C-alpha cells in the first residue's frame, strides 16, 4: 500500500547530519525532527529543505538550551517538545518562547523517587496534555490545561500468567527483604501514542515478550476498544537463542482517513491498520541496507496521505507515498466502515483487480450484493472472504425468499410427512412386544437397542445375538459420517473451510480407530480385574452399538447445516449434545449388562478405563518422542563424523 517516495538525510536537507533522531511530527506543512544527540529540533519544509533549527528556547526572556529532545507534537500555533534531558515538556510558540512548562509532578500519585524523563507528548482538543515518561508504567501522565498534574491515564495491565500466579503466592510467604530481591511484575509501559480526530488515543508497546495487544485504541475513559487478544505484530514464530522474536512497536500515528500506522523496530516493518477495528491492512518495508529499508525505526507520522518514517540508526527520513492500490483500499474502507456498502462496491472491485488476496474486499462486495438483493452472488463472495457471518446473513435472506416462493407445496408436504411419521410410529409401537423375539433382524436390531436400551442389551446379552459384522459396519459408518460431516457441512458451519484441503483423512481415521481399540482393550483389562463378565469381542460389539446415536446425529447435523443459518446454530449444538448423552447412556447401560455390574460399578469401571487410556496414550507418546530424540541424536552424530572426515 506504500511505496518509497524520497529518502532524505541531514546533509541533503542542509542541516548537517542527524545524530540519533528520535521523533518526527508533520504539521502546518512543516516537518519537525528532534535531532536528539545534537540537542536540537530541525524544521524542514515539505520539499525537505531546512526552514529553521531550534537549539535555544526563551523561558520568560531567559535563554535556555534544549537537551536530548525526544517527543514532538504540534498544532496550529504551538510546538510541544519532550525536552527529556531537562526533565520538562515545553510548549513553544513560533518564536521559540516557552508558553507553558510541564515538569515532574509533585503529587503523591507520582513516586517522587522516580525520574521524570518525558518521551512523548500529546495535547487534546480541550487543552489537556498527555505525557509518556520513561519507566512510568502507570500509563500516560495527564496534565490540566494550566500545566498542573491531574492523574494517570490508561495503564497497560499485567498479563496474568502461571508464573505470575506462582509469584503472587510467593509474595504472601516472603518477607520484605526477600521480596525486594524478586523481580517485580509490572505492566508494559507505552512506547508511544497518538490521538485521532475523534479523541481516541492509540498506544503501542515496545516489548520483547508480549505478542498480543501491543496496540490499543483507548477511549476517553482509558479502556481499550480494539480486541485485546490479537497479535498486532508479525504472525511468525521466529526463535533466536531460545527466545521468541516479537515485533517491537516504537511509534504509532493516526491519519484523518481511517488508518493507523505503527512501526516495528525489530524487523523494520511498517504496519497499517483500519482505525475502526484494528484489522491489519498492510505490512511494508523491512530492515536492510537499501533505501526504503531501515536500521532502527524510531518514529512515524502521517500527513497529507504520506507516511514519514524516521530511522535513528541511519539518521534519515524516508517518505512513503500511498500507491494507487493503497488509495483504493483507503477509500473503500472508509465507505465500508460507514456502512455504505453499496457505494464501496466498485472500489472493492478495483481493489480485487490489483490484489486477489484481499479478504475484506470479498467481504465488502458480499455486503454490497446483499444490499442489492443478489444473495446467491453474495454468498459466493462471502465464501471467498471466509466470512461465515456475512454468508449466514445472505443465506437467511435467500432462505426466506425460497420459503415465500415455495410455501404452497412446502406446507402440505410437511404436513403429510409429519402424519406419515406419526402413523408409522403408532404401527411400530403396536408391534413392539414381539419385535425383539420373533422378527429378529440383526441390521435393524441396533436401532431397537437405541430406542430401548435395557430390553435391547438384555436380549443381546442372553441370546448372544451381537454381530461382529454389524458392529464393524456401525464403526465404519461412524468414521465415514465424521469425515463427511467435516467435508460436506455447509460453509458457515465449517469453520476450517479454507484448511479443508489440508485435512488428511488418514490421520483422522487412525486417531478414531485407535481410540476405539484402546478403549475396548483397556476396558476389557480393567473389567477383568474387577470381575467383569464381558469378553473383548463383546465389549467391542456393545461399544459399537452404543455409538449409533452419534452416527445418526452426524447425518442429521449435516442435513440441518444446509437449512439453518448461523443464528440458529444452537439447535445443532443442542442436538449434538443430546445425541452424545444418549450414546453415553447406551454405553453405560450396555456395559453394566455385559459385565453384570451395578450402575455404580460401571461408572467406576469407565473412570478406570479412561484413566488407563490416558496412561497408555501417554506412554505411547513418550516412546515416540524418545525415539525421535534418539534418532535426531544419531543423525547429528553421523553429521559430525561426516563433516569432520571431510575436513
Amino acid at each position, binding site marked *: 500500500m506504500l511505496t518509497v517516495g524520497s529518502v532524505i538525510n541531514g*546533509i541533503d536537507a542542509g542541516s548537517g547530519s542527524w545524530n540519533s533522531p528520535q521523533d518526527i511530527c508533520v504539521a502546518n506543512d512543516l516537518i519537525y525532527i528532534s535531532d536528539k544527540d545534537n540537542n536540537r529540533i530541525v524544521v524542514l519544509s515539505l520539499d525537505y529543505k531546512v526552514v529553521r533549527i531550534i537549539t535555544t528556547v526563551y523561558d520568560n526572556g531567559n535563554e535556555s538550551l534544549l537537551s536530548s529532545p525526544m517527543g514532538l507534537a504540534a498544532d496550529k500555533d504551538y510546538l510541544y517538545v519532550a525536552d527529556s534531558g531537562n526533565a520538562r515538556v515545553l510548549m513553544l510558540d513560533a518564536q521559540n518562547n516557552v508558553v507553558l512548562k510541564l515538569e515532574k509532578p509533585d503529587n503523591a500519585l507520582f513516586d517522587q523517587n522516580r525520574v521524570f524523563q518525558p518521551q512523548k507528548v500529546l495535547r487534546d482538543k480541550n487543552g489537556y496534555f498527555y505525557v509518556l515518561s520513561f519507566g512510568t508504567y502507570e500509563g500516560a501522565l495527564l496534565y490540566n490545561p494550566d500545566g498542573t498534574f491531574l492523574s494517570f491515564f490508561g495503564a497497560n495491565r499485567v498479563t496474568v500468567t502461571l508464573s505470575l500466579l506462582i509469584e503472587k503466592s510467593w509474595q504472601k510467604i516472603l518477607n520484605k527483604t526477600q521480596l525486594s530481591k524478586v523481580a517485580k511484575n509490572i505492566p508494559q509501559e507505552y512506547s508511544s501514542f497518538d490521538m485521532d480526530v475523534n479523541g481516541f488515543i492509540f498506544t503501542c508497546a515496545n516489548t520483547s515478550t508480549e505478542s498480543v495487544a501491543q496496540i490499543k485504541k483507548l477511549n476517553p475513559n482509558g479502556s481499550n476498544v480494539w480486541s485485546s487478544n490479537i497479535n498486532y505484530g508479525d504472525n*511468525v514464530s521466529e526463535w533466536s537463542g531460545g527466545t521468541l522474536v516479537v515485533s517491537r512497536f516504537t511509534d504509532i500515528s493516526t491519519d484523518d482517513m481511517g488508518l493507523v500506522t505503527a512501526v516495528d523496530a525489530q524487523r523494520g516493518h511498517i504496519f497499517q491498520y483500519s482505525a475502526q477495528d484494528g484489522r491489519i491492512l498492510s505490512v511494508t518495508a523491512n530492515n*536492510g541496507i537499501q533505501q526504503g529499508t531501515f536500521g532502527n525505526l524510531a518514529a512515524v507520522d502521517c500527513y497529507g496521505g504520506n507516511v514519514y518514517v524516521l530511522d535513528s540508526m541511519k539518521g534519515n527520513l524516508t517518505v512513503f507515498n500511498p500507491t494507487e492500490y493503497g488509495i483504493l483500499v483507503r477509500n473503500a474502507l472508509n465507505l465500508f466502515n460507514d456502512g455504505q456498502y453499496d457505494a464501496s462496491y466498485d472500489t472493492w472491485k478495483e481493489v480485487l483487480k490489483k490484489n486477489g488476496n484481499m479478504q475484506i474486499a470479498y467481504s465488502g462486495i458480499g455486503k454490497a450484493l446483499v444490499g442489492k438483493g443478489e444473495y446467491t452472488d453474495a454468498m459466493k463472495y462471502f465464501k*471467498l472472504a471466509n466470512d461465515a457471518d456475512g454468508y449466514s446473513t445472505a443465506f437467511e435472506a435467500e432462505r426466506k425468499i425460497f420459503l415465500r416462493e415455495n410455501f404452497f407445496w412446502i406446507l402440505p408436504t410437511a404436513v403429510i410427512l409429519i402424519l406419515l411419521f406419526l402413523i408409522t410410529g403408532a404401527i411400530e409401537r403396536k408391534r413392539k412386544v414381539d419385535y425383539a423375539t420373533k422378527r429378529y433382524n440383526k441390521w435393524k436390531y441396533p436401532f431397537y437397542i437405541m430406542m430401548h436400551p435395557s430390553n435391547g442389551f438384555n436380549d443381546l446379552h442372553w441370546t448372544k445375538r451381537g454381530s461382529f459384522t454389524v458392529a464393524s459396519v456401525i464403526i465404519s459408518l461412524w468414521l465415514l459420517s465424521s469425515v463427511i460431516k467435516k467435508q460436506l457441512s455447509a460453509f458457515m458451519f465449517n469453520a476450517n473451510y479454507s484448511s479443508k*484441503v489440508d485435512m488428511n483423512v488418514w490421520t483422522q481415521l487412525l486417531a478414531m480407530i485407535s481410540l476405539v481399540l484402546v478403549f475396548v482393550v483397556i476396558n476389557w483389562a480393567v473389567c477383568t480385574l474387577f470381575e467383569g463378565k464381558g469378553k473383548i469381542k463383546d465389549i467391542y460389539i456393545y461399544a459399537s452399538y452404543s455409538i449409533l446415536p452419534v452416527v445418526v446425529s452426524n447425518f442429521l447435523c449435516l442435513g440441518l447445516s444446509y437449512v439453518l443459518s448461523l443464528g440458529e446454530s444452537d439447535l445443532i449444538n443442542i442436538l449434538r449434545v443430546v445425541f452424545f448423552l444418549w450414546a453415553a447412556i447406551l454405553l453405560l447401560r450396555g456395559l453394566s449388562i455385559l459385565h453384570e455390574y451395578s450402575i455404580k460399578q460401571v461408572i467406576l469401571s469407565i473412570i478406570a478405563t479412561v484413566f488407563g487410556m490416558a496412561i497408555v496414550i501417554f506412554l505411547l507418546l513418550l516412546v515416540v518422542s524418545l525415539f525421535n530424540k534418539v534418532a535426531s541424536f544419531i543423525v547429528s552424530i553421523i553429521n559430525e563424523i561426516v563433516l569432520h572426515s571431510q575436513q
Partner: protein
Amino acid sequence: MKLCCIRNNRSKYMRKIKSFLRQGIVLGLAAIVFCFSASAQKAEPQLKKAIDITVVSDTEIETQDFSLMADKTAGSIILKDKRTGACWYSNPTDGDLQTNMKGINKMQMESQLIVNYLINGKTSKQATSFASSTEKEGIMLSVDSNGIKITYNFISEKFEIPVLYSLDEYGLVASVLSNEIVESGENEITEISLLPYFGASGVNDKGYFLVPDGSGSLINFNNGKTGSSYQQKIYDTDGLMNSDTNIVKVEIAKLPVFGIEKNGCTLLSVIQTGASSCKLMSYVSGTNGNYNYIYPQFTYRQSAAYKMLSKTWYPIEINFVSPLSVKENFTVRYSPVVKKYGGYSDMADCYRNMLDIKDAMGNKSIDNVPLYLDLYGSAKVSDNILGFPVMVNRSLTSFDDAENLLYQLLNNGVDSMKVRYLGTSSMGITNIKVPTSFEPTSAMGGIKGFNKLVEFADKNNIEIYPDNDFIFFRKPTFSLIKQMDATKDVCNKIGSFYQYETSNGKVKYNSVNRYALQPAKVECAADKYLKSYAKLNNKYISMSTLGSFIYSDFGNEICLSNSTAEKFTGILQNYNENNFNIMLEAPNAYALPYADSVIAAPTSSSCFDLEDETVPFYQMIMHGSVSYSVPSVNLSDSDVEVLKAIETGSGLMYSLSNADYSVLCYDDYDKLYSVTANNWIDEISENYLKVKQALSSVTDKLMVFHENVSSGVSRTVYENGVEIFVNYNDFSVDLSGTKLEAKSYLIKQGESK
C-alpha cells in the same frame, strides 16, 4: 539432511574407487574437450584487431593510443591516454590526502592486490601487496611485447601472484594469471582484490562511480554515506551459497562492468574473464580514509561455513574450502573513454562497441515496440476428494483461451505481441520436473491446440514462446532420487533452494525446496527438449532461468560457475544454430548475445543506501539491438512502470491468467495476486498505445544519452536526435519554456546533441 549426509559419506569413498576406473575415459575425454576449448579460445581473439605493443623501456610499454608505466619497486602502474592526456593511477599520488591515511587504510591504498587467505582452512586473514611484498622487496617485473608482468611475492604468507598488465585498443588490460599462482605452506588463497585504488578519487574530486546494480546505478563521490558500502556479486551470489535468511529484494548485477567519472574524465572497466567469481566493492570517502574507490574482488577458492546447532542453540560454524580453485584468469579491462556525450552514456557507448550485440544478433532490425505477455497455462493446486488430499493440475489459460485473449487485444489495437507461455505441461507453473519434451496437457489443448494457436499467432504478428526451466526441479527427471540429479554445495550437501517467509525472511518451515540440476544434465535436458520441440513449426522458445542464473556444483565432477556459464551459453548457441528465437528473462552479459527478446529487464537498481541515482545502463546497451520489456506491470509494486517503459525505451509486460485468481488463492501462488485477465484487457491496450506512440520513432535507434535532469525528471536521447522527457512527479515541471505535466512525458524531435 539425514539422507544426504549418509550419501555424501558413501559417495566420497565411491568416488575414490571409481576414479581409478574412470581415469582412462576422463583423460581421453579431457583431451577432446581441451582440443575443442582451445580451438574455441583461438577463435575469440580473431574478432579483435591486433594491436602492436612497443616496449619503450624496461618499465614502459605503449600503443598508438595509450602508454603504460610501471614502478619497479612499488609495483604500481600509470595508464596514460595519449588522445586526451589523461592519466589513471593504480594508487593515489596526490600528496596531502595520502599522508593523512593511516594503518590498514594506508596499506590498502598503496597496494595493487589485497588477498584474503585461510590458514589451515580455518582462520581467515588478509594480506596487502604493499605490506607483504613491496615493503619486503618481493616485486619482480618483466617486460615484453605481451605487456608488463609483475609478480607479487607475498614473502611471509608464502605465495606468489603474477599479474600481467597489457594494452589493447581500448586501454589497459590487467590480468591475474590464476594458473601461475604459486601457493606453498598451509595458506590457501580465497579472494584476490585487483587494483583496489585504481582511479580512486579524493575528497576534492567531483564525479561518480557507475555500478551495474539492476538497470545501473550511480554512487556520487563524497556523498557522506559513510555508514554503508556497496558490495555486489556479479551475476548474483552463487546459487548454492544461499543463506538461511533472505529478506532483501535486490536487483542483480547483470553486466560485469563498473565505471569511474572523475572530474570530467571517464573510465570504463569491464571484467573480461572471471566475471562469475567477481564481486564489486565500493566505498566513499570518510569510510576508510579520504578516498572514494571501487574495485573487483575475485573469488579464487570458494569457501562456506556450515552451521551446526550446538547445545546452547546458537549455531557453530564449520568452514569448508573448495578442493578446486578457479583456473581462469581474472582479467579486467580499464578503458579511458573519449568524451562524446559525457558520463555514463559514453561508458554505455564504449561497452556496446565491445559487446557488439548487433553483430551477434545478425543485424535483425526491430521495427516496433511489442507487448510482452506472460500467460499462465496450468498450475498444480491442492484439492481434497472426500478427505483425501490430492494435487490436481488445473488449466488456467488453455490454448483456446489464449487465442481468445489475444484476439481481444488485437481488436483493441495491440498489433504486436510476444507471449511467454508458462506451465504448458502437466508440471504446471511450478517446475516439478525438468522438461525433456514439449508435452502440453490435453486440458490445455494438447499439441493440436498449440499448433492452432501458433497458426493464429503467425497470421497476426504474434510470437508464442513456450517457457522452459531447465534448471530447477522438485522431483528428479534423470535419476531415481533427487540427490543424484541435484547439485552439491561446498559443504558437499545437496544444494536446496529454500522458500522464505515474507515477513522475517527466514526459511519457510515445511515448505518444498527446489533443487538445481547438475549443469551437465541441464545440457542433456535441453538437447532432448530441442529434438522434441523442433518437430513443431514454432521457432520461438523461452528459457527463463538459463540466461540469468549460474551456480557451481561441488558434486562428483566439480563444475565451477564459470564452466556452468559456458555450458549454458553452449545450449543457447545450439538453439540459435537451430534457428530458434530465444526469449530470456533479464539475461546476464554472457547470455545477452543469444537473446532475441529480453523479458522483464530491470528498470530499477536495488537502491542500496550508498547509491544516489538509478540509471538505465542495461537498457542503453540493448536498445536498438535487442527487444526488451519492463518487469510485469500488473505484478509490480510500482505505479509508474508505464512511464518507466517510456524512459527506458522498453515494451510493456503483463502477466495474465484466464481463470480467476480465486482458483489459486488456497495454494502457494500468493505472488500472482493480480493476474485475472478480464480485469486488465482495457488497461493493457490503452497503455500499449501510449507507449507505442511515445517510442515509435526510436525503436531501432541507439540510446545515446540519458540523464536525470532533476528529481523525478529524466531525459533520454536517441541517435536520431529524438529526446524523450519523463516526469514522475505529482506536479508539472518547466523544461526551458515547455511545461511537462505531472506523471507524463514529452517528445522533442530535435537537433541532435
